[in-house]
Every structure is written in structure tokens, then in C-alpha cells.
């Protein structure tokens, strides 16, 4: 039934005329579940690159480090030709990555864990860690005159989100409060942010870490009659139009499409030509910022899932 | 003995022929089983039982514990479809898929173990499945005041003076609970009344009332199926006696064919009981007569 069709579609991509890749098999394994807005763009990038080079790319993700490491183990037993992995929790993945390296499978790390990448034997790292991006966001907000910031965490205990808030704290130089909301229930998120703004009127900045929460925060700021400035991570059509309407100051853009596209490109090159880019030094994909100035161009791209 | 498809097997099998019992007038029986059987996994609960329930007649089903009486009842009431044999209602094969079908044909039942919903109040239980309605269209509603009144009246006429019809049935005493079930069946039973050990938990007075109900139902022309272990209850009201033993039928007797004493001894050792009474009290004979 449905399963066969989709499986067919994937294999279809793999068996498409392969000018360069020669039917290689790459696994992209991230620390976010399928459907996460940010990581979906990474997935799109990786799959587009796969199609481009005629290699098969399978994307998997799980927020639980244990399960993520199992996914790596699985890829190793399937003898894939390369593994792309995001290391939010390097320690937990150490053993599995080592297994892949021992099996002579090239590994590229993306997004986070750049500092341990080389130590683990990865050929390179693409992207930069969440705290760098967070720091950038903090600095932008500081420039906008924010003194007291509300950092909205939509998944309690998630390392990446925690790092973003930590970075923002550094960038702003103190005065950051956190708020936990549930990304599955936006009505609730809205009223929680409203509640916080109502009860503490000294808050003059809000940083959200997800585009859907950003929209909720925009509504909340309006509901609470607050003057807080709003910044967010990542893009969506709504976020871009809110930026154009001056409701959102900026969106941190890691250009995560590259974190999908580049490693697949690098692995293809490595496989064919044993190329390593930058001699193993990390390749940075950001941070970029989408503001009112460049929002218009980005808007269309965000709608189609590449920004 | 092969049951299915045969002409009424009971006729030449029971001591009293099909047409010989009291009240038999050649009319089509209300209910009829022909060689019915029921198996639960590896357990044969009922084997090849044929009987008839006629209008204006009380059929008593007698037998030891585990003889299959309740299983037979459940076939008649549409809870179980028979695994073998035929079940006819008004002479036509009945394909009951649920007790609802049986109820719609006017067959009301008091079950031995499928009794009441413990957490629901007395009046809700009483009318469950046949709620009196008022109003029209989307505003049709359960007529609660009427329901309460009816329940209180029906229970009082059974000699049960319930304190509060809102009390959950689960907090009633055993006999009170059974009375509610009986009152319900009597109230809704239109053509056939099936009672599985209705008097087991009842006081002497209440049991008397139930026996009188049975007689009244019979006189109104209903067919009654009555199960009991008490020969003193069975004999006064029964017209025909179906005896089951270990899942099989041991024959059917008309009232004319048995005496009370015979019935008691047929019910597995009634005579024994008399002797037992002696044995039990031998140490201290009653002082007064």
C-alpha cells in the first residue's frame, strides 16, 4: 500500500541517472524528529543535493541521543557510503561514530559538536553551534535597545535550545529570563507569553526559537499591549511577512539548507576524489540575519522550504 | 442424536408429547429450540436440547449447578447464537444478532450474571435500553420525572421500599438489586418473560411476589421460562418441567405427569434433604413440636 509507494519514490531518487555519485548511499542522522521546521530545511537541502549528484540520501532523526546513536549503528550495519550526523550530545554519540570510522565510513558532522568533530575522526564539520547563533541574536537585540529579554523555550531540556538561550545571554550581557511553552499548543503558548509580559512589564525583548512560536509571540505582544521587540530563530512565510510589517525585528538564519546540501556534496566528492574541503577545518554556514532589508527576497524561498 | 434440520425432536423424546402438555393447543409455540448446542472453546456447555415455550404456559428449567440452564437462557434471549441446532421464534428461524432483537420481539430477560450497571442509579438502570421519552425532534429527552415515579411504584409493589432511586445500583443489597432486574423485566416483557434464578437472593415475601408475578404473566397469556433450584418455587407455578443434566436434556414433563415429591427427587436428591434435616438436628430435637 502506501508504504510501497513511498519506498518506491525513495529508490526512484536513488536509481535516477547518476552522472557523478554512482549510486552511493548516504545517511543523514540528526538530533531532531522529522517535522521540525528548522531541520526540515536541512533535509530538503540534503535530498536536493542527493538528487543533483545521483546519490541516495536517507534522512533520519531523533531527539533522544540513545536512539540517535542506534540510528548511526543501523547505518553502519547497512554499510552506507557516508554518514552525516549532527552532534548535540557528542559524548553519547562517540561510540557509534567511532564504529562508523572503524568501518571506514566517512563521517561529516553538521550543526553542533564542531569542537569534537575532529577528535571523533570526522572528515569535516559544516555549520556552527547554537551558542554562536544565540550570541548573534543577543547582540542584535542589544543593538535594538533591549535590556531585559524573555527567551521562549519550546521543548524543555533540549540542549540546542538551551545553548541558544545561553548564547543570547552572553550576547545581551545579562537580563535574560526563560519561559517554557509547548510547541504543540500555540494557543497556550500565546497566553503564556502574554501572561509573562503582563506580570513583568519591564521585559522589553522576546526571543523565540521556532517560527511558529514567533507568530504566537507576536500575537502575545499585541495582546499584552507590550512594547517588547521580537527576534526569532528560523523562517517561515508568516515570519517573513511579520518582518516586513515591522512586527518581528529579525530572524536568525543559519542557512541550514547548506548544512544539508554541503555535507552530501563533500561526501560525494570524497567518495569519488578523496577530496576534503578546508583540510578538515569547520565550514561555517552562518550566522545570517533576515531583517526588513532582505526579507522580500527571502520570503519566496522560505515558502518553498529552502530557507 | 442429530438436532439440526430435524422435525421437532422433542416431540417423541419427552415423556409428555409436544401437544400433550397443559395449555398446548396446537398453536405455534412462541419459542422453540431444536437440538440446540453451545460450546465455549473446549467446554461443551449445552448439547442437543429441544424445547418449546408456549403462550400462557410456564416452562421451568431445572437442573444441577453447571447443567447449562443459563446457557440455554442466553440462547433464547439472543445473547449467544447457538452453535448447532435451530432456534425458532413464532415458528420462523430467529437470527438474533443481539439481545436487542429479542427485546424487540417482546422477549424480556432477567439474567443470572449480566445484571446491572453498578455505577448507575436505580432509575437509569431500570429504563436502560427502553427509556421513556418526551418532546420532539432534537428536543426529545429522557422523561426523568416519569422514570423515577415508575421505578418507585414498581419496586414498592414488589415489597422493596427503596430509599432513594438515585442510589447507585452497586450499593444496593443483593436482593434489592435482583428486585430491580425483575421489576424491569416484568415491566417490559410483552410476550415472553425469561427469569434465570430470579428468586435466589430474595426474601420470602419478595419471592412470593415474584411467583405471583409469574402467575399473572401466564394468565395474561405470556410465555414464561423460569429457572430455580427451589422445588417449592418451581412446583406451584410450573406447567412444564425441562430437566437438564451436564449440558444435556433429561426430558420434559408436564405438570400432570409429576407430583411435587417426584419433582423434588428429580431435582437431584430432594428426598436426601428430608433425611438430612433429621441428620442435622439429631443432637438436639426441637423442644417445641
Amino acid at each position, binding site marked *: 500500500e502506501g508504504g510501497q509507494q513511498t519506498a518506491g519514490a525513495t529508490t526512484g531518487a536513488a536509481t535516477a541517472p547518476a552522472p557523478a555519485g554512482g549510486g552511493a548511499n548516504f545517511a543523514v542522522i540528526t538530533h531532531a524528529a522529522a517535522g521540525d521546521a528548522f531541520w526540515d530545511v536541512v533535509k530538503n537541502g540534503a535530498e536536493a543535493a542527493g538528487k543533483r549528484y545521483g546519490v541516495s540520501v536517507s534522512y533520519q532523526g531523533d531527539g533522544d541521543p540513545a536512539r540517535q546513536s542506534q540510528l548511526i549503528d543501523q547505518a553502519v550495519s547497512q554499510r552506507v557510503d557516508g554518514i552525516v550526523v549532527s552532534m548535540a550530545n557528542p559524548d553519547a554519540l562517540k561510540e557509534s561514530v567511532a564504529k562508523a570510522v572503524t568501518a571506514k565510513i566517512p563521517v561529516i558532522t553538521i550543526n553542533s559538536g564542531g569542537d569534537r568533530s575532529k577528535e571523533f575522526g570526522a572528515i569535516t564539520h559544516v555549520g556552527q553551534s547554537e551558542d554562536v547563533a544565540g550570541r548573534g541574536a543577543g547582540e542584535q537585540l542589544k543593538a535594538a535597545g533591549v535590556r531585559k529579554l524573555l527567551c521562549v523555550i519550546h521543548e524543555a531540556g533540549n540542549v540546542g535550545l538551551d545553548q541558544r538561550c545561553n548564547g543570547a545571554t552572553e550576547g545581551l550581557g545579562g537580563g535574560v529570563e526563560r519561559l517554557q511553552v509547548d510547541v*504543540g499548543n500555540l494557543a*497556550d503558548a500565546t497566553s503564556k507569553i502574554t501572561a509573562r509580559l503582563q506580570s513583568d512589564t519591564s521585559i522589553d525583548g522576546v526571543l523565540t526559537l521556532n517560527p511558529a512560536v514567533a507568530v504566537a509571540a507576536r500575537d502575545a505582544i499585541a495582546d499584552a499591549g507590550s512594547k517588547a521587540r521580537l527576534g526569532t530563530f528560523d523562517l517561515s*512565510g508568516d515570519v517573513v511577512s511579520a518582518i516586513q510589517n515591522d512586527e518581528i525585528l529579525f530572524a536568525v538564519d543559519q542557512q541550514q539548507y547548506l548544512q544539508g546540501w554541503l555535507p552530501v556534496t563533500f561526501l560525494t566528492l570524497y567518495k569519488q576524489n578523496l577530496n576534503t574541503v578546508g583540510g578538515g577545518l569547520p565550514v561555517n554556514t552562518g550566522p545570517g540575519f533576515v531583517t526588513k532589508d532582505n526579507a522580500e527576497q527571502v520570503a519566496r524561498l522560505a515558502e518553498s522550504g529552502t530557507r | 442424536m442429530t438436532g439440526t434440520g430435524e422435525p421437532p425432536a422433542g416431540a417423541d423424546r419427552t415423556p409428555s408429547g409436544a401437544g400433550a402438555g397443559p395449555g398446548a393447543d396446537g398453536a405455534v409455540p412462541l419459542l422453540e429450540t431444536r437440538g440446540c448446542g453451545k460450546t465455549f472453546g473446549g467446554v461443551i456447555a449445552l448439547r442437543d436440547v429441544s424445547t418449546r415455550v408456549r403462550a400462557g404456559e410456564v416452562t421451568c428449567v431445572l437442573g444441577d449447578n453447571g447443567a447449562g440452564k443459563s446457557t440455554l437462557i442466553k440462547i433464547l434471549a439472543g445473547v449467544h447464537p447457538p452453535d448447532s441446532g435451530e432456534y425458532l421464534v413464532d415458528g420462523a428461524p430467529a437470527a438474533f444478532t443481539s439481545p436487542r432483537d429479542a427485546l424487540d420481539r417482546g422477549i424480556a430477560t432477567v439474567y443470572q450474571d449480566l445484571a446491572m450497571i453498578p455505577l448507575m442509579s436505580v432509575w437509569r438502570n431500570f429504563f436502560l435500553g427502553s427509556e421513556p421519552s418526551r418532546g420532539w425532534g432534537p428536543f426529545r429527552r429522557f422523561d426523568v420525572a416519569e422514570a423515577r415515579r415508575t421505578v418507585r411504584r414498581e419496586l414498592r409493589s414488589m415489597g422493596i421500599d427503596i430509599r432513594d432511586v438515585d442510589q447507585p445500583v452497586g450499593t444496593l443489597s443483593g436482593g434489592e438489586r435482583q428486585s430491580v432486574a425483575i421489576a424491569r423485566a416484568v415491566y417490559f416483557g410483552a410476550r415472553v418473560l425469561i427469569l434465570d434464578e430470579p428468586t435466589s437472593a430474595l426474601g420470602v415475601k419478595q419471592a412470593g411476589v415474584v411467583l405471583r408475578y409469574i402467575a399473572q404473566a401466564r394468565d395474561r397469556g405470556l410465555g414464561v421460562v423460569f429457572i430455580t433450584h427451589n422445588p417449592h418455587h418451581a412446583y406451584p407455578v410450573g406447567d412444564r418441567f425441562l430437566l437438564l443434566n451436564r449440558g444435556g436434556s433429561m426430558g420434559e414433563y408436564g405438570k400432570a405427569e409429576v407430583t411435587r415429591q417426584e419433582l423434588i427427587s428429580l431435582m437431584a436428591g430432594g428426598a436426601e434433604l428430608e433425611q438430612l434435616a433429621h441428620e442435622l438436628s439429631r443432637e438436639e430435637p426441637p423442644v417445641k413440636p
Partner: protein
Amino acid sequence: MTVKTAGPGADERLASTGLARRLLIRPELGAVVGAVVVFAFFAGQSETFRSVDGVANWLDPASTLGIMAVAIALLMIGGEFDLSAGVLTGTTGLITVILATRYGFSIWTAMLVALAVALLVGFLNGLIVVRTTLPSFIVTLGTFLMLQGINLGVTKALTGTVQVSGLRRAEGYEQARAVLAGTFSLGGADFRVAILWWLGVTALATWVLMRTRPGNWIFAVGGDDRAARAVGVPAERTKIALFMTTAGAAWLVGSILALRFTSVQANAGLGQEFVYIIAAVIGGCLLTGGYGSAIGAAVGALIFGMADKGIVFLGWDADWFRFFLGAMLLLATLANRLVRRYAEEVRH
């Protein structure tokens, strides 16, 4: 002493009980006490919490939760669970938004299609449960997972992203928004119309439960399925109708949220299924079925909403948020239980 026969007159077997005590026995009034405790706790400490603005704020999430909790309560009284209800709110929202923005449907037609799909899902849930007699926990878990996959897979296949937006531009948007996702002023604050829907749904559910034949059947199939069938209750139809009611409520909530945020994520509603059950249980529903009330579930949603927002109003450390929430829920149910224990004695 002579043998005494019971006199006629008043019933000597009833102890006199106060009205208050008798009222407290009702499942919802226990929950009301819990709600009062929680309200008093937060209102005493936060001025904003008890201000009209604050009330409007915490009533808002309570309203959508409450609509679902009431539907789930009916289902639970009928002895079944529905784990797919949360994701179904997302599914209906996605259908509405995708149809209205990518295929040019008017909002109302799009919502109608979404309703039809929701009812179909509810019908299938119910049909599978009554036909296979598998526990609904497992069946709706299957639907839950499958819907989750469909939400993501179909949305990505049709739109290339995991989030669809732009409902604002669709035909009929303003009208639909006013009816389902608008606000009304009261005492100087803007309240969401969803609150009215919540009250309406609760009143309707209470009426059905207490005063109609189907209400009687719901209690019966939840209390003892076999006994209910034996007295002729159409158990299968009742259960299927309950699943469809839940699906209808999910559609209502999904539409309200889609209209309000004008965009829907593919993982919307995920994880809410248990919040609904929690609200119903706080409100006095038994997990084993056969007991509970719609008002109770609505109050349960209120308790959950107040505790959830109140902690934010007090500005307690976000890291400890869950801790306080857990403690609060436990205390509210405990207050409820103590009150009822005082008021009644159960057979044990």
C-alpha cells in the same frame, strides 16, 4: 422488647444530611472545589492573575482544552480512549489551510471537507474498536501514529514545507474568524469567542448525558458493556457515535486554531491527547469508564489552565515549571478527593 415492625411515615433508614454535603457528592462539585483552591492560591499572589485581563488570558487556552476535554470525557464515560484526538486537531487545520490557500477553496468549503474527514476518522476509529474488540488505547494509538505520518508526509508532498500559512488571504476568512476565533469585549478586556463555544459544548454535553437516551447508553456501555448489550443498548452505535463526537470536537478546535493563527504546522496538536485525558480525570472521570461528568471535565480544563498560567504569572523559575505544575495538579485532585470523601462514603 417487642418485635417492632417498620412504621409507615418518614424513612427511619436515612440519616439527615445537609444540602451542602449532598451537593458535594456530585463529581463536578468536587472539581469545582479544586478550581476554587487553585484560583484562590494564584489570585492571592498575583494581581494580574485576578485582573479582567488576566482572566481573559487564562480562559483562552482553557477554552480550547475544555472543548476537547468535554468530548474526551464523554468518550471516557463510555469506556474508551482516543489518543488520536490531539493530532486530529492538526489534521483538520492542515486540511482547511491547504485547501483554502493552495487549491482556492473558500474557507467554509474547506472546513466542511475537513469536518467530513474528521468524522470519517472518528467513524473508522469506532468501527475498528467495536469490530475487533481491541482496546481503543491501541487502536487510536495506531491512528495517532498514522495521522502523524499523514500530516507530515502529505503536507510536505503538497507544499514542500512542514508548515502552511496564508489563510488570511482566503475567501470568507473574516467571517469565519469572527465566528470561531474572534474576540468579544467584557469589562474592558477582550475575551476569545472560543470561550462561548466551550460553554456551549459543555452545556450540550451535559444535557445529552443527563437528559437523553444516548446519555443513558453512554454511562451503560462504559459501566458494563456486556450487561448493557444484554438489556438491548445499541453499544456499537453508541461507541462509534462517541468517537465521531470526539473527532467533531477535534475539528472545531482545529478550525479555531487555524483561523486564529492563519497557519498550521505539520506537528500541531501532538502531545495534547494526554492533556485532554488529564483534564477529564481531574474533573472526576474514571479511567475505567462509567462515571464522570461533562461539567467536571470543563472544570478540569479550567484547573489545568489556571495552574499552567498561574505559575507564569507568578514568574517562578521556568526550569522548575513542570515541578510546580505537577505539585499543583496533585494538590487540586487531592482537594477534590478530600471534599468528596468528607461528603460520601463508598462501599469498600
